[in-house]
């Protein structure tokens, strides 16, 4: 039996979109937990609230946040991201959308996946003010990370790897690529001016790498210490690092190519062309060049292109109307 014997089944376009969104929202919860955790650590001795402001700015949430909060302190920001169901970028909203996507897909995902999402949803919904005290936030972040990691593991072990899985995986990699650029952006500008004095900043580098789950691997690669180009290169380009932009793009490439060759989805073409451009831009420059030309601008460009890539997939493969999808992607 050749492997093409298993690829005759059709996938409803709308379901492909739900699979992609399911993965994005679940990843988003893990990444938000990482960002909150690292910002909290950075902000420990910082009375200027600079770290909280930068977190809000990176997520594009400053306006929405200040519409209902006077100051960006630890409690307000934690409430905004962990408890506020009206905030579309909170974990409450993310798990609600994720569960809704999973409900739509329930005939396609495994029972174990559905069960875990459903229970995880209940756990997040049950969070209260008491859980997000300054001492409690780390525990909540750990719970969130673990919940998503369980989801990821169950998915790896039980999700049938047909078309639907490829769309799911594309959602994961788009979100990871997007989130790593945000994580770098949150901290990198803050670190850059002082970066010459490596000894002073060791702790902060430390936290940044830990937030990305890359600390020990980085130490092994660069035992001598921290240099901004090396940290940026590690997070952006190192395809051995699971959350690097480079690896996510390479994975995306594989999924899109497989969907086109094995499932004959012609709608992959625009997304593949855009991905090609993204990958070349990463490959054609050294990190030093990127830093010299402006890291922040480069990260912004990547985020915009990833958003456009998402839209290419949604509109050309998942049946989403062009205008509506753009609106949703921006929210």
């Amino acid at each position: 039996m050749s492997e093409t014997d298993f690829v005759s089944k059709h996938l409803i376009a709308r379901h492909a979109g739900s699979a992609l969104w399911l993965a994005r929202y679940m990843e988003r919860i893990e990444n938000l937990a990482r960002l909150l955790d690292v910002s909290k650590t950075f902000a420990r001795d910082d009375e200027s609230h600079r770290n909280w402001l930068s977190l809000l700015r990176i997520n594009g949430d400053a306006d929405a946040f200040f519409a209902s909060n006077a100051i960006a302190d630890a409690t307000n920001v934690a409430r905004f991201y962990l408890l506020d169901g009206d905030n579309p970028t909170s974990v409450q909203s993310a798990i609600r959308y994720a569960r809704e996507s999973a409900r739509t897909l329930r005939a396609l995902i495994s029972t174990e996946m559905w069960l875990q999402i459903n229970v995880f949803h209940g756990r997040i919904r049950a969070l209260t003010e008491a859980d997000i005290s300054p001492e409690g936030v780390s525990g909540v972040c750990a719970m969130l990370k673990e919940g998503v990691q369980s989801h990821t593991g169950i998915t790896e072990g039980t999700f049938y790897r047909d078309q639907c899985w490829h769309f799911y995986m594309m959602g994961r990699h788009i979100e990871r690529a997007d989130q790593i650029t945000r994580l770098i952006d949150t901290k990198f500008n803050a670190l850059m001016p002082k970066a010459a004095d490596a000894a002073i900043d060791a702790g902060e580098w430390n936290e940044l790498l830990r937030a990305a789950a890359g600390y020990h691997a980085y130490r092994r690669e660069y035992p001598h210490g921290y240099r901004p180009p090396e940290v940026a290169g590690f997070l952006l380009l190192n395809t051995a690092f699971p959350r690097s932009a480079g690896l996510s793009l390479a994975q995306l490439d594989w999924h899109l190519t497989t969907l086109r060759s094995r499932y004959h989805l012609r709608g992959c073409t625009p997304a593949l062309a855009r991905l090609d451009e993204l990958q070349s831009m990463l490959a054609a420059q050294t990190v030093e060049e990127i830093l010299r030309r402006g890291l922040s601008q480069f990260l912004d460009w990547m985020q915009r292109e990833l958003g456009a890539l998402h839209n290419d997939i949604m509109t050309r493969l998942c049946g989403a109307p062009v205008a509506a999808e753009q609106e949703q992607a921006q929210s």
Partner: protein
Amino acid sequence: MGQDGVLAGYDPGALFCEMLRPGQPPDAALTLLHQRLGDLPIDSLRRRSADAERDLLERGITFTVYSDATAIDRILPFDLIPRVITAEEWHTLESGVTQRVRALNLFLHDIYHDGKILKDGVVPRELVLGNAAYCQAMVDFTPPQKTYVHVCGIDIIRDDSGRYLVLEDNARTPSGVAYVVENRHMTLRVLSDLMAKLRVRSVDEYGLRLHQAMAEIAPGGISDPQVVLLSPGIFNSAYFEHVFLAREMGVPLVEGQDLIVEGGAVWMRTTAGLAPVHTIYRRLNDDFLDPDAFRPDSQLGVRGLIDAWRRGAVSIANAVGTGVADDKAVYAYMPRIIRYYLGEDAILQNVDTRSCAEPEGLAYTLAHLHELVVKPVAESGGYGLLIGPHASHAELDEFREKLKANPANYISQPMIKLSVSPTLCDDGVKPRHIDLRPFAITGRDTWVLPGGLTRVALRAGSLVVNSSQGGGSKDTWVLE
């Protein structure tokens, strides 16, 4: 107390108990089951029951209750003590259900073609042609295999003498079959020791059989037809079941927006473009199926679907316009309908039913209101019905006025003392009233899922088993 067996102190009194079966010949399997229940400490049953409830919630096996402006996700309470049907009883039920489904299909074909049964005066013409569910689009159209009711759920009760009676035919889009299978899985998860070595008929075949029937009715000449399940979407109260059936059949679960009629054929929107669809098992009411044919404001359906169906490009199950056959007023004629088409007596009797549209029926109902059950013909789910013996004077007076204002909307039936089954309640194991909804699938032939959905009225004395009215369900064991 906590160490008492499940049946200690259980007393169904004069009611017919489906577990103890007083006066019936002994059965080895039942005796063994009684013994196991007797040995099972009630505390253990309670613990397992709590496990089962948490499991249902975690699995999201829920339905949605709508009242006024709110919608709440609830689990259908599951009572662990099974309802048992012997091989002999099942033979009666299975042949009775099959007979009824045959008659329903012949009746529908007749009333949408020559109308012989109306010409012969067996069923009043007005009752059929004037019925809100009578569908003009069906006239002179013959669906494949002449099958209209592909999935039928027939509600059956048992009276205090142990006689089975049909309460209602559900020929539109009957639901509940997912619970039959999930309840069995739950029993095997938390109470498998009760079933060990007992020969109980499996319920796992349903999805295969349904898919097979859907393939049989597909338009001719297609070797491997594409079947889809059409659902109103994730906010529908039966969505869990739609998911279940799509999975069990291995077919796409679609909404109206995923389908399109183009060039006379029906297509689904896939990642690779449009792909042909041959059979639609729809869980959407007639009214919403096609804005061209029915409600023009429906966003849930597929424009042009009915036309494509009539042209034979696609098959739809159940057919539209089947509601005229499960109407509560037509129900009263079912024994005569069976005799007319099949030349046989009904294997399963009706409950003695009076139509308030007829003056004698109305007069009798008004005079005996306190001892009757009165149902609106157009409602389902146990809404708007009166149980005379349980109603207060004020309620009776109020209902009398409603009845007089619109008599044609009501039928009345004597109150049947439904059979009971031991059921775990807050104050121990008590007798609670139950009914049964077997599910019949018809493509070329009819197949009945062994058992069916047993619903149980959890409140003491209550006769209303509907899930929307505080009912629960039980696993239904058909013994071999």
